[in-house]
């Protein structure tokens, strides 16, 4: 994969409804933190990568120019990468490629969203052309269709899937409670979840991520720089990314090839043959609790069609074999463009022992993941404590 690359610092805003700050000020909150964490200055940075959802989300086209000052990009090269929900993973991968190629030594990667400034669902309607697939516009619809397809394909009983999705939601919300930066911080019972109103059957209110404002910044560095600057870097062990056809009906979303292939590529590069056994923690992109079940299978963390059984027996719960989304995941915090980079930052915090109250004890190898488009893209980044 080229030169070794490490994460040498992360910075996240307090996520939530941030009407208290203008968009550039919000971005700056994350950028200030990443420089404090890495202990370097913008002078040490060779280039900047930025990404968000489509500009309609906040109404400023080329928002990376709007934030140029906050991004500390004046006088430096700037790349923009954008793949919808998987933007954050793509931003990380762009930075990793840049450093791995030897063209740069230190790259600042930033992703953000201020969803409350626009209308997230309305923006998501513009992701599809308006005359053929527009009827499935709106994220809950697309992902509910996918959940049912998966349940139908493996003949998963409604009640069993419901039970497992509720566990995912309870665990994620417990994670959110332990993460001071999470947007939704509330204790929920399984009953709260199963009694919540239906959004798009079978998905209920607490199966759905919130609408969040937030930004995340991560600094990537070459091996030489990382060893010089950082006492405890998080090493990039492997990355994978795959895309699919545009028309949703052209391929199976229950056996989701882009997730399967992206993770396989990352595992191969990381030398991982049994991910469930070898990984210590996973930050799986889970904007919908039902979708996480499917991801657990497609990421190869349990056999196909058996995610509900594994979830019900506690494999992915706190204290289980592979705790998932100890940060609260996307279910508790979803500034969409930033959500995939937050997964990377959280994986870095875990393998460097800096995750605080939501630290998974002794974590050395962590998976981060995000999905995007009209079920079109999947990205995976694996970080480890050892080079």
């Amino acid at each position, binding site marked *: 994969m080229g030169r070794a690359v490490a994460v040498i610092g992360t910075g996240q805003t307090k996520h*939530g*409804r*941030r*009407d*208290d700050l203008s968009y550039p000020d919000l971005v700056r909150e994350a950028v200030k933190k990443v420089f404090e964490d890495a202990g370097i200055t913008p002078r040490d940075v060779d280039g900047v990568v930025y990404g968000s959802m489509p500009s*309609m989300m906040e*109404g400023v086209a080329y928002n990376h120019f709007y934030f140029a000052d906050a991004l500390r990009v004046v006088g430096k090269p700037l790349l923009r990468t954008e793949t919808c929900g998987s933007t954050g993973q793509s931003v990380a991968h762009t930075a990793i490629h840049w450093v791995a190629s030897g063209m740069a030594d230190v790259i600042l990667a930033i992703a953000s969203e201020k969803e409350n*400034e626009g*209308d997230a*669902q*309305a923006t998501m*309607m*513009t992701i599809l*052309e*308006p*005359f*053929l*697939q*527009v*009827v*499935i*516009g*709106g994220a*809950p*619809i697309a992902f*509910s*269709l*996918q959940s*049912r*397809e998966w349940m*139908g394909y493996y003949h998963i009983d*409604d009640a069993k899937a419901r039970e497992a999705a509720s566990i995912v939601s309870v665990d994620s919300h417990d994670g959110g409670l332990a993460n001071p930066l999470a*947007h*939704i*911080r*509330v*204790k*929920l*019972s399984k009953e*709260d979840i199963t009694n*919540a*109103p*239906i*959004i*798009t*059957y079978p*998905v209920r*209110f607490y199966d*759905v991520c*919130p*609408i969040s404002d937030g930004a995340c910044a991560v600094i990537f560095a070459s091996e030489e720089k990382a060893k010089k600057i950082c006492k405890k870097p998080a090493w990039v062990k492997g990355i994978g990314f795959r895309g699919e*056809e*545009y*028309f*949703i*009906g*052209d*391929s199976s979303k229950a056996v989701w090839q882009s997730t399967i292939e992206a993770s396989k590529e990352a595992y191969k590069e990381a030398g991982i043959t049994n991910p469930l056994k070898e990984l210590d923690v996973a930050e799986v992109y889970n904007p919908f609790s039902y979708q996480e079940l499917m991801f657990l299978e497609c990421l190869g963390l349990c056999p196909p069609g058996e995610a509900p059984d594994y979830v019900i027996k506690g494999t992915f719960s706190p204290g289980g074999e592979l705790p998932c989304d100890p940060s609260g995941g996307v279910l508790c915090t979803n500034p969409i463009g930033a959500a995939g980079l937050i997964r990377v930052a959280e994986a870095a915090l875990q393998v460097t022992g800096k995750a605080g109250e939501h630290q998974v004890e002794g974590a050395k190898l962590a998976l981060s993941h995000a999905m995007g488009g009209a079920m079109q893209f999947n990205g995976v980044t694996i970080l480890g404590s050892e080079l």
Partner: protein
Amino acid sequence: MAEKYKVDKDLVRMEIVDFTFPEKEYRTSRHDTVLPYNWALGPTWTRFFDGLKEGKILGTRCKKCNKVLVPARTFCPICYEDMQEWIELPQEGSIETWCLVNYKYYGQVKEPPYIIAQIHLDKADCSLTHFIGGFNLSDPDKVRGKMKTVSRVKAVWSKEKHGDIYDIAHFKPV
């Protein structure tokens, strides 16, 4: 715990009320952007929509992999070959997946409740996204019960056709 959230179902928004920022009144500034677009449909989708106006569902076949795709395509997404052989598809098929849409949002194409489904038309090698209808959708639990018994559906055409995807009103259970 539900009382901690302000639930605005019309917008599927969760707003937390136990976290507040410093008590200063910050202003927001409202601006709307409305932009007109005129999308070229090209020869393939023009013919597809003309077909709908005549009450036909048209797909195209790839000469290399032999797959029939609907809506009709100019080229095969896998083989990249031209797809010039036109096929009129049967108007019946099976449901691959469905969901009941029970909330409102901006830009929505139809007043909820409605059912969106992936419908695998007979003789096609993919599924088509469209509505399922023709029965009462007001009670989610009853809809779920009804849909358990439905596997085959048939196209129902709109009274007035405009050469667009809504010329098919919905698919109804057979």
